[in-house]
């Protein structure tokens, strides 16, 4: 029954990932041990979700107990009315019993009203609060996890954990928990009542109990696998959906629709079968429970009938027993339906606890150090880095960038330029050696000081849903409109922003779809300048700009970088020209280092590049 053994048939189009665990958190391995661990982790998670609401949950249980009593009271009152009130009236004309019953009924109705109302309202508050806390916890965890984690986990899966998995948990907390508790109470009460009435008959009728337990165990075992698989198939579906909708322009431009539909249909079908599997197993459980209920009736009827014939018990007792059996099994049958929701939620909890337990590769320091007004001196000491075991990017880099210096990195693709930028902005930590800002190891620097002092602009130009002003403001939350406009003016973005229908309040639409790549880049520049960091890293940050914009940005850079440390990565040497120092990299090693003019005179690699570039301008 191990679903996970099945070869992944999508491997052909999805391609091979560099690590087999690319899609998962490290907790989600398939071996028996990890599954057990995950299960206990998810239980702990559930416990930690409930702990802050201990009192409220106890209160809710109290309400349910009272509600259970009111439900039990109704048949009793009916019995009492028929047996006592009617004779009292017809024999003595005494209405007092009837009046008492009427009053009790009124009270029961009111108590029931209050119980149900209180229960729904309170339980909704508790479950909403629990989910709210969990959502925030998961969101913050994802924010803390390293960029490399996000790169392999993909945004679709991050979204899946925060949408469909949360949805599954919400389903559980909103529906049926009361049924579960009530059914439990019911089973206990009826078992006690039956034992009191006739212990022997009770023992026989409870013979079916082990069968029920066996069935329940079978179901929870097989369905755990099925539901776990279903959570994964739905995540794959979401990943595909999110990606192909995000890139819908490319899909349409390349008439990819049909192929996309095919692949999506494949995932859709997988998900359908995976989802259905758990539910189908539930159908077996449901049929089985009903069968066991009927079996119990048959056993009690046969044994009880025989006992009655032997004179060991009364017919009335047998009748009562049979009625109780029905009331015993009916709620259980209803509960089987809830089991679906429960298993789904359990699997979702497992997935989420996997995320929460994932080790943060680039962790915040436990005892963060802070720096006041740093000089901006950067220092690499024997820094070694590789993304993959067999492929060293930086074998051992030693580098010192004095505060205020503008340094350009030049070299072929794969030389390690971007890696240096990512190490400085602490997207990654070095595998060996240290990177220091003003003598403080970046790993010890507080997150706030690190981000306030080092800002990187990449070619990605990500804009968030919102207006242009809001996107610039991200550089310094709370900045005034004047400051925002000033930043835009400095980088030369003001002109095009003003020409938009609503100026700075123009909504950029999803991922900035309203703007061209060059415009997005200017907005991102304005954002970084507003942030006003000590160290600024530009990783191919000007590639989408046209010449007039680049001219403006370059003029701005000259003033902006004057008193800052800067690392510039650019294939266009026009941007490199403003640097005080050029570093030519090859396979992670520095092969040339010096002032651009000196390097040109020197006649090395840089001189060659520079000549090629000059040729391209003609």
């Amino acid at each position, binding site marked *: 029954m191990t679903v996970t053994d099945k070869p992944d048939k999508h491997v052909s189009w999805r391609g091979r990932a560099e690590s087999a665990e690319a899609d998962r958190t490290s907790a989600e391995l398939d071996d028996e041990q990890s599954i057990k661990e995950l299960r206990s982790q998810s239980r702990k998670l559930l416990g930690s979700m409930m702990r802050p609401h201990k009192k409220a949950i106890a209160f809710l249980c109290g309400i349910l107990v009272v509600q259970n009593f009111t439900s039990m009271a109704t048949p009793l009152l009916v019995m009492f009315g028929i047996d006592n009130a009617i004779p009292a009236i017809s024999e003595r004309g005494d209405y007092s019993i009837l009046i008492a019953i009427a009053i009790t009924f009124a009270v029961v109705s009111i108590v029931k009203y209050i119980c149900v109302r209180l229960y729904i309202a309170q339980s909704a508050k508790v479950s909403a609060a629990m989910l709210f806390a969990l959502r925030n916890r998961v969101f913050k965890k994802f924010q803390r996890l390293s960029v490399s984690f996000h790169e392999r986990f993909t945004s679709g899966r991050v*979204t899946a954990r925060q949408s469909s998995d949360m949805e599954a948990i919400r389903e559980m907390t909103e529906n049926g928990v009361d049924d579960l508790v009530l059914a439990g109470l019911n089973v206990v009460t009826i078992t006690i009542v039956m034992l009191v009435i006739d212990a022997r008959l009770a023992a026989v009728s409870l013979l079916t109990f082990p069968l029920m337990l066996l069935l329940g165990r079978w179901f929870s075992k097989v369905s755990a696998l099925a539901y776990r698989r279903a959570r994964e198939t739905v995540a794959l579906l979401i990943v595909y959906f999110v990606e192909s909708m995000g890139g819908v322009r490319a899909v349409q*431009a390349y008439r990819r629709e049909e192929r996309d539909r095919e692949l999506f249909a494949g995932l859709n079908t997988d998900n359908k079968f995976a989802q259905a599997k758990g539910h*189908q197993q539930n159908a077996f459980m449901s049929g089985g429970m009903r069968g066991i209920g009927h079996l119990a009736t048959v056993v009690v009827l046969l044994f009880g009938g025989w006992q009655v014939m032997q004179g060991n018990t009364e017919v009335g007792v047998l009748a009562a027993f049979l009625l109780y059996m029905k009331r015993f099994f009916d709620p259980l049958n209803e509960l089987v339906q809830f089991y679906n929701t429960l298993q789904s939620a359990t699997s979702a909890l497992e997935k989420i606890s996997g995320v929460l337990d994932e080790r943060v590769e680039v962790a915040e320091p436990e005892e963060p150090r802070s720096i006041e007004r740093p000089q901006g001196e950067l220092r690499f000491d024997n820094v070694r880095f590789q993304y993959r075991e067999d492929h060293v990017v930086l074998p051992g880099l030693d580098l010192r960038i004095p505060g205020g210096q503008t340094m350009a990195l030049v070299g072929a693709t794969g030389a390690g330029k971007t890696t240096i930028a990512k190490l400085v902005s602490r997207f990654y930590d070095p595998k060996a050696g240290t990177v220091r800002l003003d003598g403080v190891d970046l790993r010890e620097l507080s997150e706030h000081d690190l981000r306030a002092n080092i800002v990187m602009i990449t070619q990605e130009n990500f804009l968030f849903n919102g207006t242009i002003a809001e996107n610039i403001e991200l550089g310094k939350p709370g900045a005034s409109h004047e400051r925002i406009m000033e930043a835009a003016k400095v980088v030369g973005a003001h002109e095009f922003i003003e020409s938009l229908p609503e100026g700075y309040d123009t909504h950029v639409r999803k991922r900035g779809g309203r703007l061209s790549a060059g415009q997005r880049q200017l907005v991102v520049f304005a954002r970084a300048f507003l942030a006003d960091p000590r160290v600024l890293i530009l990783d191919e940050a000007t590639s989408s700009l046209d010449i007039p914009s680049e001219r403006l940005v370059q003029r701005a850079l000259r003033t902006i970088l004057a008193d800052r440390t800067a690392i510039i990565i650019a294939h266009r040497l026009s941007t490199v020209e403003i640097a005080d120092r050029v570093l030519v990299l090859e396979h992670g090693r520095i092969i040339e280092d010096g002032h651009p003019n000196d390097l040109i005179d020197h006649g090395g690699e840089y001189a060659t590049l520079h000549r090629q570039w000059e040729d391209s301008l003609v």
Partner: protein
Amino acid sequence: MGSERLKTPELSETDTPPPRRSALSNLWRIKKYLYPYRFRLAFLWAMVLLNIISGLAIPPLVGEAIDGPIAEGDLRRLGFFVAIIAVLGASDAILNLIRRYMQTSMAMSIEADMRGALYQHLQVLHTGFHDRWQTGQLLARVTSDLGMIRRFFAGGLVFAITSVGMTVIILGQLLFIEWRLALIVAASAVPLFLIGRKFFQGYLPAARSEQDQSGEVSSAAEESALGIRAIKALGRGPLMAARFEKEAAELRERGINKSLIASRSWSGYDAIATAAIGAVLVFGSVMVAEGRMSVGDLTAFVMLQLALLWPIEASGWVMAHGNEAMTAADRVYEVFDTEPAIKDRPGARAIDRSEIRGELVFENVTFAYEDDSREILQGVDLRVKPGETIAIAGKTGSGKSTLVSLPSRLNDPTGGRILLDGTDIRDLRLANLRSVVTTAFEEATLFSMSVRENLALGRPDADERDLEEAVRVAQAEFVYDLPYGLDTRIGEQGLSLSGGQRQRLALARAVVVKPAVLVLDDPLSALDVHTEELVERALEQVLQDTTALVVVHRPSTVALADRVALLHEGRIACVGKHSELMETSPEYVDVLSAESEEVVA
């Protein structure tokens, strides 16, 4: 700020819920998806019916057994009864199993069918739609809304019909026993109905607003995952968390609000049903005492009424499910009802790639975005001869990217027309057109799939040689050095690759298609000078017999083109050779002069 983020226009419109009637009618429209399953559905309902009967048949038999053989002490006849009950019980269990199994499989299939259809519809919706809708909102429709509809059809609906049937049968029996008491029961239906109506009025919009907000939360989650690098680079994690918390808090409030509405009605349901039993008991007792009714009848009456309690109590839950399904159907049909703005005109013609000469003519083309009265393109006239390569130059925001989105109809012009070999492109079949005109965007959209799949995006049947050729042209040989070569999965958006690598892949992808008209939006911007030169040399051969429109930002790329067109203030200001324009057009010089790139020490 503004951490209050703007909602997409559609969403704010739909914040006011549609009238109730349309809610039901949208749910009703789902019948289209039930149709293929009609025979299985009929069979299923027969099973449900049989299952009810098998369940109902057992209790009377048990009663008979007690009154008959057990009372008489006839062990053999008891054995006979028990055997019948056992057989009935077994068939009841098996029927139940089959019914649940079928119900579940069918509901899942219907959900999957609807999801497939929704996906297909979303694919053909124009980019303007996708720009405005957050992916999280679409995702919520494709997952949780369809799930709600499925749960209603698989659970709530069967339940509702069963309990309505039970209620009718029991009411009939009650009327038969004692009509006056039955009137009391019937009278209790009035407040139930009133509460129910109020419930509908309150719950429907509440459910809608909760589901909408749930989409906002998904959007926030998705956006911050996609933008994780930007967030980390600025250290805005806490800010994003605070924003997310705001959305999540809103969702919590809306969820609680919805449940409070439920709590007000469901509690009434329970209480009224219980009170009705009390009333019947009191009046019935008086009637019995006065000799107008037998004790047995009263007992039977109240017992039956007790059996009614459960369907009434459950109806609140069923109604909630129904409401949520209606809301979900509304939200789903909101997407289905959005007509694709760009689609085949009636009588659109199919074209054959081999017949295309590749003449592309813009005639007085204007374009404005839907929500913007100002025209970005104000009358573009341009003629690209077959096989010719024209470079488009212009300042940021001059409309270059808009212009190049038109030939493959990713946008349609608001005025004027575009002709391919003399035919308005809107008269050509869309799928056809896009196989003839291929566009590569400034930002390379890569998918987390194998390199091969990414390269063959526009031509799934491309063989190894085609791919190799395209890779060579785009100087993207680095793909062979990836751990598994073309089978390596590149990460989301190819972010593990450098900008230059991504751009080369995107270029290779466009070249693989071998279109008659190639549209390239600044295709070499992220390449270093050396690579750019190599790509240009290889690309020249490809462009020799391909009509091409290339947006350029730098003079080096202009070398690819036969002529350059300068886009200025929404019009083509001038067309000519690079050297001519450098002499005659000051605007052109401003845009493309290398002077600015000169060394200023």
